């Protein structure tokens, strides 16, 4: 504590660059993880657009579908897919830290949570893709 009238002269903190998240690997991974939200939002907007087209009628919807089969669209969606996978991996890796540490007084080790998370993800994805292909 410093008495009144005796304010401490402080030098401002060490300057940090705008690109602080390049300073170490973990910051960079964190930033990539957060940035996945942008491509994911892109996909969400695409869905919204599809919905608009859908309510505008079959021909309107199908014109969008045919536009989406262009290589450029597929490339964009492939990029979104990569971001989405990065989101899934980082999200599942963080899951053990969000669940209660203790269930009926027993400490839940992170390994089974991680295993369960990845197994569920892969299974769900497999089922969705298989059904959609076989339709």
């Amino acid at each position: 504590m410093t008495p009144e009238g005796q304010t401490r002269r402080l030098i401002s903190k060490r300057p940090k660059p705008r690109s602080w998240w390049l300073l170490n690997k973990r910051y960079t991974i964190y930033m990539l993880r957060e940035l996945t939200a942008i491509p994911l939002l892109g996909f969400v907007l695409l869905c919204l657009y599809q919905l608009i087209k859908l309510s505008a009628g079959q021909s309107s919807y199908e014109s969008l579908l045919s536009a989406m089969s262009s290589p450029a669209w597929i490339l964009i969606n492939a990029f979104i897919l990569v971001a989405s996978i990065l989101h899934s991996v980082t999200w599942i890796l963080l899951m053990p830290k969000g669940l209660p540490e203790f269930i009926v007084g027993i400490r839940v080790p992170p390994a089974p949570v991680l295993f369960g998370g990845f197994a569920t993800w892969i299974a769900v994805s497999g089922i969705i893709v298989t059904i959609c292909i076989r339709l």
Partner: protein
Amino acid sequence: MHKLEPMWWGLFSVGGTIAAFLLPAMILVVGILGPMGIASEATSFVRIDSALDGLISKIGFVVVFSTITMHCMHRIGALVPDLKIPVSKKLASAIGHLGALIMTAAVLVLLLDS
């Protein structure tokens, strides 16, 4: 507004979890396999239109869509300070949440319409 923070965070978390488990497969089907003709039936007008006909599937779609949107917008709001963009943190997050609400409303209107 602070009272609502737990709600935003809860929706963000639910959306993140749904996105983690469902989105890669959905993007693969809708964005790649469908357009490439490998799963064209799944993305056809008739299929989608009839799939969105029932009330339950409408609710399901809204829940998935709105939480994932909220997830994305919440994160993008938080990216503003991370990227040192000179916009107030509160404003950024408010715009994000509002944007997600508007998009959800749009989906509701579109679904009720069809």
